[in-house]
């Protein structure tokens, strides 16, 4: 890849960020009326919509019900127009199935599942525009949607990617940085207790570097948490003020 300098001598990345800086995050809760909870998040140019239905009666056969905890059903999908080339994506392809499974495991760790035996919670996430860090944006959007739905959670789940460019750990990598084959590390974290609920690594990374890249990812997650928490508080304040006045 000639010509593209991912990290300049002055310490700036291709899109002008410093190594420890996240992309701009904008989020909104309660975007749909008919869903129990919904949220929209933009992390740079990655845009994701999440909706949550439930807890409700099991759909499609009561035999699937779990007697001691809630059945979590996650579905990850990407819009036809989300990437550079337009492509119809069938529902159950391998990639999205894997993503759905990861989402389910992540949220099973965070949602207080034992409170709703024999019920079901659906989490649907759709990527509207993809520019790196899809899974992280999905987790963050789904967290907001679950909070919007009033479903009890142990803690927020925040996810962030990190990588190593020219021996410098960088956080929240974009599609450009992802596609040059740098080692991508995905961390999903419960920020208050700093417990890692998902850890994923694409391509190889030397073990000496593991710790500093992981630290960078964890720091990114806590930064994301600050932003999400602020927007939740603003949302709750706004709505409860309206309800309080009558």
């Amino acid at each position, binding site marked *: 890849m000639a010509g593209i300098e991912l990290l300049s001598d002055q310490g700036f990345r291709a899109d002008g960020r410093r190594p420890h800086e996240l992309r701009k995050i904008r989020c909104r809760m*309660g975007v749909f*009326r008919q869903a*129990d*909870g919904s949220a929209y998040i933009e992390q740079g140019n990655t845009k994701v919509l999440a909706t949550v239905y*439930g*807890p*409700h*009666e099991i759909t499609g056969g009561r035999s699937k019900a779990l007697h001691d905890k809630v059945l979590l059903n996650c579905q990850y999908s990407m819009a036809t127009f989300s990437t550079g080339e337009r492509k119809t994506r069938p529902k159950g392809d391998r990639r999205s199935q894997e993503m759905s499974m990861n989402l389910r495991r992540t949220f099973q760790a965070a949602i*207080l599942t034992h409170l*709703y*035996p*024999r*019920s079901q919670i659906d989490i649907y996430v759709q990527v509207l525009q993809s520019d790196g860090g899809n899974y992280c944006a999905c987790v963050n959007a789904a967290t907001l949607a679950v*909070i*919007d*739905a*009033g*479903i*009890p*959670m*142990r*803690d*927020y789940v925040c996810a962030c990617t990190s990588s190593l460019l020219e021996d410098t750990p960088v956080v929240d990598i974009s599609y450009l940085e992802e596609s040059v084959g740098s080692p991508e590390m995905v961390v999903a974290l*419960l*920020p*208050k*207790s700093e417990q890692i609920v998902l850890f994923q690594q694409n391509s190889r990374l030397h073990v000496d570097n593991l710790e500093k890249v992981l630290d960078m990812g964890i720091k990114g997650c806590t930064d994301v948490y600050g932003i999400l*928490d602020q927007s*939740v*508080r*603003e*949302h*709750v*304040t*706004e*709505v*409860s*003020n*309206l*309800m*309080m*006045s*009558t």
Partner: protein
Amino acid sequence: MAVDIRLPRKRKRGELTSEPRGLVSPGDVITSDTGFMRGHGTYMEDDKLHASVAGVVERVNKLICVQPLKTRYNGEVGDVVVGRITEVGQKRWRVDTNSRLNSILMLSSVNLPGGELRRRSAEDELMMRQYLSEGDLISAEVQSVFSDGALSLHTRSLKYGKLGQGILLKVSPSLVKRRKTHFHNLPCGASVILGNNGYIWISPTVENESSDTAGGFIQNLEPVSEDERGVIARLRNCILGLAEHRLMLYDTSVLYTYETSTKYEIHELLKPDVMEEVIHLARLKLEQEGT
């Protein structure tokens, strides 16, 4: 045909006021004092009480709970609910009441046609689908809550039973204010059932209900006059507007909104800016009354 087209409206942000006291989000520590009891929306970890939902902390003596802004319906004994039959089973109907599990209406907790009280026989079981079949709407009261959280309903009163002609609205259950009565015959000429589960039923008022001996299973299918339908449609728009602007729903708020909306045509109420003005006026009126 005239078509009305508007540009997308900019989302209005409420003026940022200070956070209410005791606002928590999931994972926040409410207290590390062990002398408190753990209520809904909280959990205990490392001897500390954490919040599990986003909302405002409520404290009753030693009990701490957090009420989220929006949830599925959590039933309590004595609540009035509106529901839809989803399944007819042996000796019971399953009813969708917007709660996390389908509610159950036992054959033994309905008034049978004829109004007589007797043991339910095998014939009654075979007749169940004639009384209530899938898709029928009913109003009922919560009789008890099962251990897994499902509700048991009953319609052992003439005011409950099968619903005839009208409109069903679905709003958030937290917007329905708990009152002594949830059945209202509004002076504008329609009846409203404000179900605690967020399902709202609007129907034309019937005058002579005392002669009802069928146990509420016979539907009145006479055509509803256009005036009455106008009133019902206006009420629908008003209630949806109230829910959109997150005002509590009870007889006074619905009535005031209805009154302030009369200067507009019914279809004009569907425009967001008109609705906003109507709701604003109704809110002012409610605040005047309240003080």
